């Protein structure tokens, strides 16, 4: 990647122990990095530095990460944001996405995972695809998802999905065409990292496939990558 095509990342965290090692790590991964130490600094730099993506810690003094995100979105600033959040409940996670975050990552995390997420988010925005995160309603072929009401329809018939299956479908549809490991789904939708919990992911994917009549050997929606994870293969559009 040549110097003039390096993507600009704004890293926002009040903990210098984190930024002092994470910023150089991101730079070695090929990004140009600017660091903000609190919410107000973040808003200032989002203007002056004009980053292509913001990595934003949630828990900060004065203006916290959520408020920064709200300010940005209210000002029609759709710069992609990855929240570093200690989100517990599934509803909190869903809210993080609804508030306009493109992705979130729980601490402690593997820095390589952060780089992978940054690259995936930048790839989508580079393709000129609109951010799916602000969208209330998403569609793919005959599938329609309404995130606010937590309802989904296939071939105009409403689907009866468990809350976890819905959250799983929502996560897959807001990260289309991206390989997502079962560990990541377990963390993103359940908030767990128990190896035994991996089966819960498979069970919910099976539930989704059955509800969508999606054949795993010729999928229209959810593809299995054996030994790796799942990928949502359908083209996802924002529905007004």
């Amino acid at each position, binding site marked *: 990647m040549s110097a003039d095509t390096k993507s600009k990342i704004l890293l926002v965290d009040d903990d210098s122990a984190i930024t002092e090692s994470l910023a150089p790590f991101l730079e070695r991964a090929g990004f140009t990095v600017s660091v903000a130490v609190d919410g107000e600094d973040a808003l200032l730099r989002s203007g002056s530095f004009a980053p292509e993506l913001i990595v934003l810690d949630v828990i900060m003094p004065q203006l916290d990460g959520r408020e920064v995100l709200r300010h940005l979105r209210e000002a029609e600033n759709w710069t992609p944001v990855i929240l570093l959040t*200690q989100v*517990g*409940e599934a509803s909190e996670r869903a809210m993080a996405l609804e508030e306009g975050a493109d992705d979130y990552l729980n601490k*402690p995390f593997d820095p390589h995972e952060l780089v992978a997420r940054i690259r995936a988010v930048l790839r989508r925005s580079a393709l000129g695809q609109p951010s799916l995160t602000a969208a209330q309603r998403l569609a793919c072929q005959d599938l329609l998802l309404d995130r606010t009401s937590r309802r989904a329809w296939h071939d105009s018939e409403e689907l009866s999905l468990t*809350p*976890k299956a819905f959250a799983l479908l929502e996560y897959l549809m807001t990260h289309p065409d991206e390989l997502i490991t079962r560990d990541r789904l377990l963390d993103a939708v359940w908030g*767990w990292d128990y190896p*035994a*919990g991996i*089966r819960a992911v498979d069970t919910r994917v099976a539930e989704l496939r059955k509800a969508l009549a999606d054949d795993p050997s010729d999928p229209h929606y959810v593809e299995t990558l054996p030994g790796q994870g799942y990928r949502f293969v359908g083209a996802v559009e924002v529905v007004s």
Partner: protein
Amino acid sequence: MQAFRNRASEERQRFLRRLDHELKNPLTAIRAGLANVAAVPDEEERHRILESIEAQVVHLGHLTTSLRKLAELETRPLERLPVDVLELLRTAYDLALEHPLAAERQLALVLPERHHPLPPVSGDHDLLSLAVYNLLDNALKFTHTGDTIELRGFANETTVVVEVADSGPGILPGDIPHVWEELYRSQEVHSVPGSGIGLALVRTIVERHGGQVGLHSEVGRGTLFTFWLPAQDVSES
């Protein structure tokens, strides 16, 4: 009331002491590793030391996440859907068969005959699966080659009962009251890997579902872990 406060305070003291212990060792290992890595010229040796440090850090990460999950479980609202306990037990049993230690134990699944099905339980399928699996994982870790482990499920109209019985070494009487506590690790088994959170999770999950946990053990004979859950109609009445 004062007795309750004293007990809560004692539990908190015990928990903090154990947390200190769980953190101390990995942190000491990390510092020793870092001191070594600075002094070692050989690249391959440095790499090996750094990998070892990373393993300690990942372990601390798991500990943090486990404690966070436990805290959340105690407070967040529970998903309440009908759970098919038979299916849940069969799935947990199949998963246990894949455990690295399963080949060295005799596992068995004992369920009621077809005309006595288990009534559904109202709750979170994934949490209850985790509870059953943790009991099986615990039994696998703390028994020896050739021991039997039996997973049983049965019920009456109001209560569903799940048991995990093993023919292992048993738990010392002094340890029995503490086995369910967070980070508790008996001196007898301190060499067995694990976080010490597994059983605390089982207890929290079962109690949040309106149930109870029980334990009976005899040194030299074996251990029986039990939990009782109210059947769906009962818990909603």
